[in-house]
């Protein structure tokens, strides 16, 4: 990974679900390249470990549940008052609810609602908060999808629906905002070494590796590099796209 100091100097970044894993790795990447970053996570005890040695003037950490609209609004307000309007939004938070995953005929509507709330509605709500200012000043939105949306993993119907919903949301919003110098794109990771991944059984991990041409599980930093690209000036003509980061597991 080559971090370029200063590529995001002066930029304000907001990231949801950033105490661990991909969100934290991406936040560290933006911080290393000069941005000021606001992060929110329910599991705020992870912040200290993930953001050691980051100067306080560069980072705002907020403890809160992203599925609560009022909490998100407060997070946005604090980010703006601390750093100014958001230039780059990474709608990262999401969960497959894998612990409660079930075959569809045995699934509960309560779990669908949770998965859709955390993986789709938070991205829409957070975007709704930043878009008015972005329409005036330009900006970047990167949404978190998953290759599970394309593959359609059994037992994860709700998650696949939420993550494909992200793709439709991304395209329509990209079209609405294109003339306002705002790009909207999605990333769709495959197997990434995060805490959710570490809870998988060895048999499942082997199966994933066997179906991934690259033959290995990637690190959160591999996704951070893709998000940074989509947020950079280099990607100003890329909009409405979904970028798969899955070692070739799904090729569209």
């Amino acid at each position, binding site marked *: *990974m*080559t971090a*370029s100091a200063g*590529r995001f100097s002066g930029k304000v970044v907001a990231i949801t679900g950033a105490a661990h894993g991909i969100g934290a790795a991406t936040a560290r990447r933006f911080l290393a390249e000069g941005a000021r970053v606001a992060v929110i996570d329910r599991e705020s005890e992870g912040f200290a470990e993930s953001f050691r040695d980051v100067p306080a003037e560069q980072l705002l950490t907020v403890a809160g549940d992203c599925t609560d609209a009022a909490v998100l609004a407060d997070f946005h307000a604090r980010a703006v008052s601390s750093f100014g309007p958001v230039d780059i939004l990474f709608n990262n938070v999401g969960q497959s609810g894998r612990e409660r995953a079930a075959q569809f005929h045995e699934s509960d509507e309560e779990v669908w609602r949770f998965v859709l709330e955390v993986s789709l509605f938070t991205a829409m709500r957070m975007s709704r908060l930043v878009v008015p200012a972005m329409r005036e000043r330009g900006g970047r939105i990167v949404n978190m999808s998953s290759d599970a949306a394309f593959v359609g993993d059994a037992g994860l119907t709700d998650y696949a629906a939420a993550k494909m919903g992200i793709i439709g949301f991304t*395209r329509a919003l*990209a*079209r609405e905002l*294109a*003339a306002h110098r705002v790009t909207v794109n999605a990333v769709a990771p*495959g197997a990434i070494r995060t805490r959710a991944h570490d809870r998988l059984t060895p048999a499942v991990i082997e199966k994933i590796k066997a179906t991934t*041409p*690259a*033959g290995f599980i*990637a690190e959160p930093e*591999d*996704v951070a*590099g*893709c998000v*940074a*690209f989509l947020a950079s000036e*280099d*990607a*100003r*003509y*890329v*909009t*409405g*796209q*979904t*970028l*798969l*980061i*899955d*070692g*070739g597991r799904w*090729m*569209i």
Partner: protein
Amino acid sequence: MSGALKGRRILITGAAKGIGLATTERFIGEGARVAALDRDEAALTALAGRFNRSQLHPAKTDVVDPASVAAAVAESAAALGGLDGIVNAAGIDLVADIEAMALADWSRVLAVNLTGPMLVMQAAYPHLKTAGGGTIVNVSSGAGLSPLKHRTAYCASKAGLQMASKALAMEAAEFGIRVNTVCPGAVETELFRSGIDTSPDPQAAYEAVRSRYALQRIAAPDEIAAAILWLTSAESSYVTGTAIAVDGGRTFH
């Protein structure tokens, strides 16, 4: 970014003009050493004059000719001391009604846009394996994702290039070789200009193209080079077999 390709040895086709040229300039700026292949000798000579031989090695090549490709790839690998990546940017366009299209025109488009990149990949593949891995970026087109009228040959060649890239991505993964495509929309190049300027009403033709894109403008070659750079750099280390549209919002792929 700067130095993102430090020391990397990259072969680029169509390197003297348009997207290939922008890519060559950007790559050298990022520290790569480039073998520049093009069939336009004058343009290639002009390009070669701008850089020293350790930065750029020019090789006149016609990608439709297997012998020419084999010679150029061998010469390039020898000059650079090996190859770590390729960018297939050479391509041609064809606008023709199905009834008016000559078989020779169809065949030429397929030869340049699809068979040509295959020949380059085939010739360069052993060098990438020897290097212990590498990157291949093929310049396809938004027209390979979503069709355009009167462009049967062009669309088919570009869609074919995407699928060839994906199939090779599966095959090459075990050698640490990543294969991806970039799908530009309309880009301000000589090729694009010639299409506009030869139409009956150039202004109307330009507007018709421009209005296809959500961003309401034609891309600069640099904007495509930026995506090619990213797919060639270590930043995209887990990305293979993908097709990135850099089309200002047309295909919504």
